[in-house]
């Protein structure tokens, strides 16, 4: 059963794997779209909090105001998360360097860039883990106390689900990059496996791209 499976004569001119990754990303993007659209609707129905002032305003739904994550919950200050965004953007730029170095055959250099990308991803996860533990310990998310917060409960749900789902994607991306890194080290990934690197890159940049949207909608707006 050793048949060569690859693009046929009338292909779109891209590798199968790349086309597969792009179509997978369509699917993944729509999953985030489901969460983000749900967030948009819940958020729209909640009353506004002015400029981050905690207010006791209660709307007709019976829910309280939408909290402003960076002023309300202390540690997830906007600076920390902005720094996290910065790290993810940096790890995105290191990832393109992996690709351009692999394309040029400079595997040693690509290996270092790949390591930097992994560290960036882990750093991001670390900061997010810190945020989550803070929210759980100080504000009692995931415990009975969460229901007693004087803020809109939908914030807790949408915040945790969006950042959690994104964090899971980062974790998968880190694993993907680890495989790539080991491949580069063991010489399994060379110039010929350019497409594999490109696919790993596509996934990683997509995670970055989604974070740009999540950061804007969840933290900044």
């Amino acid at each position: 059963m050793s048949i060569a499976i690859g693009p046929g004569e009338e292909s779109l001119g891209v590798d199968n794997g790349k086309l597969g990754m792009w179509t997978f990303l369509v699917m993944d993007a729509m999953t985030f779209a489901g969460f983000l659209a749900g967030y948009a609707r819940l958020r729209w129905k909640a009353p506004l909090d002015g400029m981050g002032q905690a207010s006791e305003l209660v709307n007709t739904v019976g829910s309280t105001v939408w909290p402003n994550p960076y002023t309300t919950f202390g540690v997830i200050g906007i600076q920390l998360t902005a720094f996290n965004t910065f790290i993810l953007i940096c790890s995105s730029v290191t990832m393109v360097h992996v690709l351009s170095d692999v394309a040029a055959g400079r595997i040693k250099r690509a290996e270092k860039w790949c390591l930097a990308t992994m560290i960036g991803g882990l750093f991001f996860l670390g900061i997010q883990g810190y945020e989550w533990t803070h929210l759980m310990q100080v504000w009692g998310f995931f415990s009975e106390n969460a229901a007693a917060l004087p803020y809109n409960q939908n914030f807790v749900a949408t915040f945790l689900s969006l950042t959690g789902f994104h964090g899971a994607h980062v974790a998968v991306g880190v694993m993907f990059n680890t495989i790539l890194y080991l491949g580069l080290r063991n010489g399994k990934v060379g110039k010929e496996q350019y497409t594999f690197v490109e696919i790993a890159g596509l996934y990683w940049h997509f995670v970055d791209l989604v974070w740009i949207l999540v950061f804007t909608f969840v933290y900044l707006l």
Partner: protein
Amino acid sequence: MANSHEEEKLWFGLLNPLYMWIWIALIVLTIVEVIIPEPELIGMEPFDRTFTVVSLIGLALVKTVLVAAYYMHLVGERPAIIPIACAPFLFSIFLTVGLFPYEDDVQVPARYQKVIKAPAAAEGGDDAKAKPTSALEKKANPANEVASLSQPKKENDTK
């Protein structure tokens, strides 16, 4: 895609011009994004809410397009990939626009108002800040009423 042959000698290709310019642009945009909701950071007056929302979404989209176009190499990609990449944007807009909580802005003709008023009166007036929602949506809010609405089993024995 950036040609990487010239900067062979440069340190780790850090000066690869296109990627680094995009990187700088992303970082600058992020800084702008952080300042818009909290202009106090650089001693400015708070912005209007509408301006904040529109500009933040605009900036986020610009960043998204930059990442997709240059880091995911859409600019140099085969034309067939581009519609695939754009599809989720289109359909997530369909989704978001479609599930927006539209208000029921019906103008009830005067001769029907008596009929419609009767159930609506039970709900009482809400404070001015609350957005008018449709009668059913309002009714759906208290927990136990929803339970009975969507639990046919319970309704069954009243027959």
